[in-house]
């Protein structure tokens, strides 16, 4: 079951809301238990067998967390349990996500003579595994508190974030569930949540799914398109994944808001970014935050210790030398983006995507480090030029993300750069659609700005229309009804979210 499945929208969500309101009257614990139960039901709709994996993962991590809490006074024992927990989580992820593709790769290369078959990837395994690793690390650092099994299960499984994020810290969600007023449906939150969800549904079923056909045409026949068609297909996919993931994030935030739970922002107009560094602060924000906190920062600590041990500095000046830049900036960046690529899946295309972004980020940091702030080049590379330039490289990297193999990605790149000439021109409909999506992503406010939910700390965006604030007015109601009726008519369980495969 996905968020755009009619069964989810018209049966599951109303049942979850009604049940929550009912059980909340009995008490806090029963309301929590009900939400946890519904989250397992939500997960089981995809494949009931894999509920066992989810339950097993929760029990394992919960046990480790208890053992870590018990060993609070003994630092080394606690550390050992943490390491065990992380290895067990990564082991589970490796088994389901990487083992069979890797073995089959060896078979294809003729290095091994055996048929391994394949194994279905449990939905959302990357997300619930990362959430739980973060919990264990935070528990060790004292940034998370011990929970009852019920609370912990809800923290991991709460259905708005279970299968594709946002990747949530314990402290972002569980304190909210401790507040008594959360156990009463707040009509303002319900209506805001429904509006938010509706906007996400529109992005997914009308915009993302509408663009999928053009993207699929290119990627199902790589190496057969003229340059114009290849660029159209690559653009279509870039926009498809934007609206798909942005739509998903809106739906997740809206669903959580129905229960008066506020999730962190996961998406903030990434195509308005003026650099790749800026892009990653706007795209899948919670994953970037996770990688920075649990991969990049520890790596930097290790590098810093090594440099200090060998008498090298970590200063700004050291960073501005070639050796220092490579050691302090480029190395941890490329390692982090490589792991980000691997996180998306077992395939060379994802590794290429990660490395490509590693290179982008390194160049971007080198630019910031080595090009003087007031230089003519810096002045030129700002505003719309910077947005367009960044977007160009995002489209280029999206090709390797979408292609089914490196060879196919290479074929699409060759098409884009004119192997078969310019090819046929875009049709009028294609031009109108392209114009429309560019207007939306570059000139319009994003969902949280339209709803007045943008936070102080969020990066500001330029837009043609002034940001608004949602209110239960006739105008908002009419707009939401129209968008909901149209989007629901196109809702289908057949078109899963692209991020569900991760």
């Amino acid at each position, binding site marked *: 079951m996905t968020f755009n499945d*009619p*069964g989810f929208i*018209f*049966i599951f969500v109303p049942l979850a809301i009604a049940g929550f309101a009912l059980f909340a009257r009995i008490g806090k614990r029963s309301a929590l238990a009900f939400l946890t139960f519904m989250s397992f039901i939500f997960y089981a709709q995809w494949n009931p067998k894999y509920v066992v994996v989810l339950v097993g993962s929760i029990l394992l991590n919960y046990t480790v967390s208890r053992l870590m809490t018990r060993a609070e006074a003994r630092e080394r024992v606690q550390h050992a349990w943490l390491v065990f927990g992380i290895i067990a989580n990564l082991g589970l992820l490796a088994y389901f996500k990487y083992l069979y593709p890797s073995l089959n790769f060896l078979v294809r290369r003729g290095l091994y003579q055996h048929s391994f078959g394949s194994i279905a990837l449990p939905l959302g395994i990357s997300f619930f595994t990362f959430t739980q690793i973060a919990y264990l690390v935070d528990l060790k650092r004292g940034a998370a508190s011990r929970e009852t099994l019920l609370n912990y299960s809800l923290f991991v499984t709460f259905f708005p974030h279970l299968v594709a994020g946002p990747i949530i810290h314990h402290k972002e969600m569980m304190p909210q569930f401790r507040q008594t007023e959360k156990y009463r449906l*707040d*009509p*303002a939150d*319900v*209506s*805001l949540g*429904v509006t938010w969800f509706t906007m996400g549904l529109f992005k997914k079923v009308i915009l993302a799914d509408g663009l999928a056909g053009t993207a699929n045409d290119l990627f199902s026949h790589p190496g057969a398109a003229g340059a114009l068609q290849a660029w159209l297909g690559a653009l279509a996919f870039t926009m498809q994944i934007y609206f798909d993931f942005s739509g998903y994030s809106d739906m997740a935030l809206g669903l959580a808001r129905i229960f008066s739970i506020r999730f962190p922002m996961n998406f903030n107009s990434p195509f308005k970014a003026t650099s790749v560094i800026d892009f990653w602060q706007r795209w899948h924000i919670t994953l970037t935050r996770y990688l920075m906190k649990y991969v990049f920062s520890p790596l930097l600590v290790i590098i810093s210790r090594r440099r200090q041990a060998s008498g090298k500095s970590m200063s700004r000046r050291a960073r501005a030398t070639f050796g220092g830049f490579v050691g302090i900036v480029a190395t941890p960046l490329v390692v982090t983006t490589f792991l980000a690529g691997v996180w998306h899946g077992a395939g060379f295309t994802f590794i290429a995507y990660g490395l490509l972004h590693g290179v982008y980020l390194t160049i971007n940091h080198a630019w910031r480090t080595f090009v003087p702030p007031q230089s003519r080049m810096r002045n030129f590379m700002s505003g719309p030029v910077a947005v367009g330039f960044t977007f160009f490289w995002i489209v280029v990297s999206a090709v390797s993300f979408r292609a089914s193999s490196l060879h196919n990605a290479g074929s699409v790149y060759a098409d884009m750069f004119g192997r078969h000439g310019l090819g046929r021109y875009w049709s009028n*409909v294609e031009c109108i659609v392209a114009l429309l999506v560019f207007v939306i992503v570059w000139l319009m406010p994003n969902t949280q700005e339209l709803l007045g939910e943008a936070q102080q700390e969020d990066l500001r965006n330029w837009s043609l229309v002034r940001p608004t604030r949602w*209110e*239960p*007015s006739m105008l*908002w*109601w009419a707009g*939401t*009804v129209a968008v*909901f*009726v*149209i989007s*629901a*008519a*196109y*809702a*289908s*369980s057949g078109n899963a979210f692209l991020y569900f495969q991760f």
Partner: protein
Amino acid sequence: MQLATRPIPQAKSSVLRAAARYVIWLALIEILALSGAFWVATQPWFMDHEAPPNLRMMGYALRAAGKNCDVVLYGDSTALVGMDPSVIQSETGLTACNIAEIRTVLEVVGVHLPLDQYLAHNRPPKFLITAWGPGNFDFEHRPMESYFPDGYLYEFQYNRGPWLWGALIRHPKGTISFLLWVQGSILQNLLNKLVLGSPQQVDYRSLRDSRDGAFLFPQPPQRACEQFPSMPWISPARLRTSADKFKEQYATRTGHLLVDITPIADCFVEGRYRIASVQGLYDNTAQLWPVDKFASMNIHLAPQGARSFSEQVARQIEAIQQQERETQGERTVATR
């Protein structure tokens, strides 16, 4: 201090009331839209104007009421495009009609419904020839267990009644998906009219009706095998049991009943394995044909392939007739 703070809760409560109204009215409008879709889906107008053009051809079993064909051809989409009544008529001299429906209809309504509807409005045929693709077709599949809008539309248009209302309540997910699909079809048509004007649409129903129910594929022959994700085939044992039951059920309602398998493209590797495993379960031989005899999905015959397969069916009929004549002759001799 208290007086100063008093208006705030009042303002808050009015916002809460407005928010509650906001959600309730939104839900009511959607319920109204779904109810409207429910009514619309039962109307012939929806079938004639709003449903996707390729679905408008379904329901030939009902349109053939009173035709009293000597040979009734039935089966899934491979039979629909692969058995041409005009060929059978010219080869055997018997009147023929094709009442097959596509798999996405049969999986919802069940294998029996269109056939029963035909038999209820016609005299029993001399020959009932059914033909099925080598896919995952299940004769015992229970109605409404699967969701395909095509099948739901068939039910809404041609099989309304207390049974259907009960089934819709038992399958709320399918029901809602179908009603949304109805809304989507209407919106899509509206959009097409706005963007493209009113483009000329192929009248698939007239095409089918003009050929006694056969739908000869309006596509050029395949040049190579098409690739699909793996199909979930049903086991040969289950196929045998359900085919036997099917025969048992209809043997008394028709002169002769045959259950055939339609050919597949010889380049279709997965299908080849399948054919090998079901050999002997059908009344004809499972066959592999060159890919250019097919028009789509390695199993749907092009008109040229349909002619060849129809000729084979005609020969099956002639063989039975011949056998009958011989038996009749032997009986006459014995009586003399």
